Every structure is written in C-alpha cells, then in structure tokens.
C-alpha cells in the first residue's frame, strides 16, 4: 500500500502550525535516532488547555504530516485528555499502514509533546 496518500502529502507539503512562537510555556525536543531528524514542539497553555502549538525541525513526510495532524488535534484540548491519546489514535488518524520502523517517524511528535507536558 502506498503510504503517501493525498491526505498525508497535503499535511506534509502544507504543515499546519509549523514554525516557532514567542514565549512558549513548554518547549520539548527529541530526535529520531534512525535518521537524525529532530522535532521541537512549543506549547502555550491556558486554563489547563493547549491554547497554541507550534512544531518545527527537519523531518520526513510521515513525521511532518503526523506533527501537523497532531497539532490540529490537540489545539484547544485539555492537557489531561492529551495524555490519554494513544499511539494508534494518531496512526489511525493518518489512515495509512506503517511498518514498525516508519511508525517511529509517525510517533515522534506525540512522544515529544507528551514528554513536554509531563514536565509542565
């Protein structure tokens, strides 16, 4: 199955919430060992909810598309709810089948976000 579906390519080519913000409340960063790609997520929090989010860093189509989709998903959500997002929820949203190695690309953004919120 081709994983580069229209949906994925759209988020890859036009990633939502891509870039950096001024004065974030939370900054979290991690790398995917496999490729050396790094992702940084910045978050503004208001009343226990994510008020705004930005992600940045070099990445493959899968990691960037998942970052983009994740950012849309979590914006406005309660932090306690975000902690409940499961790996398969995000992958399910992407609507593609991934091999174990590419799953890591898809899940990098979620891990970085959760790690960041853990410390918040």
């Amino acid at each position, binding site marked *: 199955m*081709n994983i*580069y579906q229209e949906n994925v*390519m759209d988020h890859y080519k036009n990633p939502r919430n891509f870039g950096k913000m001024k004065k974030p409340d939370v900054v979290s960063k991690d790398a995917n060992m496999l*490729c*050396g790609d790094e992702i940084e997520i910045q978050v503004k929090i208001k009343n226990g909810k994510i008020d705004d989010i930005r992600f940045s860093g*070099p990445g493959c*189509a899968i990691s960037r598309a998942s970052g983009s989709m994740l950012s849309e998903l979590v914006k406005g959500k309660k932090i306690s709810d975000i902690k409940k997002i499961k790996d398969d929820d995000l992958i399910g949203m992407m609507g593609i089948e991934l091999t174990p190695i*590419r799953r890591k690309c898809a899940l990098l953004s979620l891990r970085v976000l959760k790690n960041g919120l853990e410390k918040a």
Partner: protein
Amino acid sequence: MFDAKKIREDFPILKRKVNGKTLVYFDNAATTQKPVQVINAIRDYYENHNANIHRGVHQLSQEASQMYEDAHHVVGKLIGAKWDETIFTRNTTEGLNLVMYAWAMRKLKKGDEIISTVMEHHSNMVTWQFLKEMGIKLKFVGINDDGTLKMEDYDKLVTRSTKLITVVHASNVVGTINDVRKIGKIAHDNKALFVVDGAQSVPHMPVNVKKMDADFLAFSAHKMLGPTGMGALYGKRSLLQSMDPFMYGGDMIKQVTLEKSTWNDLPWKFEAGTPNICGGVAFAEAVKYLERLKMKNVRKHEEEITKYAMERMSEVDGLKIFGPGDYRNRGGVLSFNLGEIHPHDLATILDEFGVAVRSGQHCAAPLIHLLKAHATTRASFYVYNTKEEVDYFIDVLNKARKVFG
C-alpha cells in the same frame, strides 16, 4: 570477466518478491546476500562435521578443528597475510575494539595522540573516544567538498606524540577510496601504528596488507558473501605477539593456575572461548567464491556499474551525489539526495517498488553533518547487480520525484 546475470542464479534471495516486485538489492554496503555455496557449507558443517575444536581427539572434533584452521588460511591468503596473523572476530567493529583494548589501552599513556578522520564509520571513531578518559588525544583529518581527505592535514596534525593513525580504506558513505599507502607511510615515518578499516575495501577490490603496510586491518564476512557474526582482524605477527589477549577463556591459554596464566600461540590467543566455528568455515567458502571470480574482476564490475549509475543518476532532476566525481576513485557506494525528498521517504517509495536502499546517517553522523545533509539515501552495489537493475532504479526515482513533485 564474469557475468553478473549468471552469478545471480547462485543467490536464492534474488528470486524473492518484495511488495509484489522482484527484489533489487542495492544495500550491499550494509550487508551482502549469500550464495548457495555458502548456505550449503553451513548446512554441510552442521549435518556432517559439527564439534568443538582444538582439544577433542575424536573424529568430528578433528574434522571441525581442521576446517576451522583451514579457514584462517583461506581468509588470510585473500589479503596477503599468514593464517596465524588472521584473527577471527565477530565483525569489523570487534576487530577495531580489539586493537583499542588489547593494544592502545595497554600501550598508550596520557598525552599520546591518535589521528583518525572525519570520514570514519562510528566503529572507527567512537571506539577511540573511549581512550579520552586516559588522557589520550583524538585528532581528525578533514575532508574536501568532494569527499576526499584533506591529505595536507596530516602534516599539521602529526606530532611526536602521535602513536596511532587510523583510516577507513573505502568510505561507506561518500565512497572515497583513500590512499592507504601514503597514509601508512606517514604513520610509519612517524613511528605510529597504522590501523585500517577495511570493511568496505576487502569485499570489493584486491587488498594486500603487505603493500599498504598495515599493522592492523579489520573487515567483516557479512559484507562479502559470508555469514553474519564473522569478521577478521589482520595484525602483524610481532605486534600480536607483544600483546596480551583481549578476551579470556578457553583455548587462548597455555597453562593456568589459580594465580596466573600463560597464553596460547597465534591466532588462538585472541580467540577466547568456543569460536564461531561454522562462521569461519562459511567465511572461507565466501572467500573462495570471490577468488573464483577474482577480486580484480569484482572491482571492475563495480566500476562499470558505478559509472553507469552515476551517468544515469545525473539525468535525474535535482539529484545530488556526494563524494568524488570520478568513479575510478570510489567504491560502488552512491550516497545521494533527491531534491527536498527526505531519504526515508525516498527509501520507502523505492521499497514499494522492490528496491532496497539504505537511508539515514549510515553510522557516520559527523560526516553527514559535514556534508550539510541531515541524512542521505545510499545505493551500493555488488557482484550480482546489473545495469538493468540500475535502469529500473532510475525509473522509480523519477516516479518518486512525481509523488513529491
């Protein structure tokens, strides 16, 4: 010259389908496929001869001992070494670690210096970093834009404290074949040891330890038609004799008391415990296969494929190949990027069409950063690859360009 299409018949895996397509295996720098001769040698060993070696007087043990010793002769001969200067290891990495632990750690002292290069595989870089704790200094020769070594750096880096110079013979990323004779001479003119990472040269071209005057040369069986879990380290006999063992256990010992031990003869002194006996036997079979083809023909075939691939790739819009522009100065390893497509995406698309390439940093992160890339895609060739496969590969690259257009 040999016929790659004929050779393909010896490799069962090449008949495999991947994602419905015939496998095109271009990941040979990572590991190569195995001919039926090697697979059968493994089977024959276990079905007819398997036993522990050295100390058994029974028939099987004597057969296994002989086969394992013979394997040292076969592998040693390939690189112009004596059998007892040929130590069997798990892989290149273990060979280099052996030199670090059993030579450098015990013979060097605070203030001594080691010169490596920025082109190294992690195994010939991180290994030496371990010695920093002891106050040993690590210096690196740089590279030019075309992925060749800045040879003039040696002049600047060598001092009277330089005790070891190490270099990769052929790069697994940029393909560069380094002038090991010249670097060996620099090392020996300065009374330093010369250590060569032959992981990407021994499998692909004639290599002779005497001609390059290497003190140590490490390589891996799995990158030259042989089994996983096998490699060899050549070491000059006088050096090996002057060293204490790396690991301690059975078969590397002459006499043992509770208090102390004396060491066995070479090469056994450096092969503690039950070795990978079957691996040694299968490695020898792989070397025999290559010797039937002749190493100079292996090199010639790869030059042809590499030249052709470079030409065809230059036709692909936005494709950039790293490393020397002249195929004669490089091994059959082509690292490249295609426009802005991330190497992982490119490799995934190629895989959907049955083409196996590697993507990432190729265990050489510092070099990748110097190339100002985050990662690259790498196609690497071996005896069974053909120009038709290259054509197919180019077609898929063009398809990828459209998906990501």
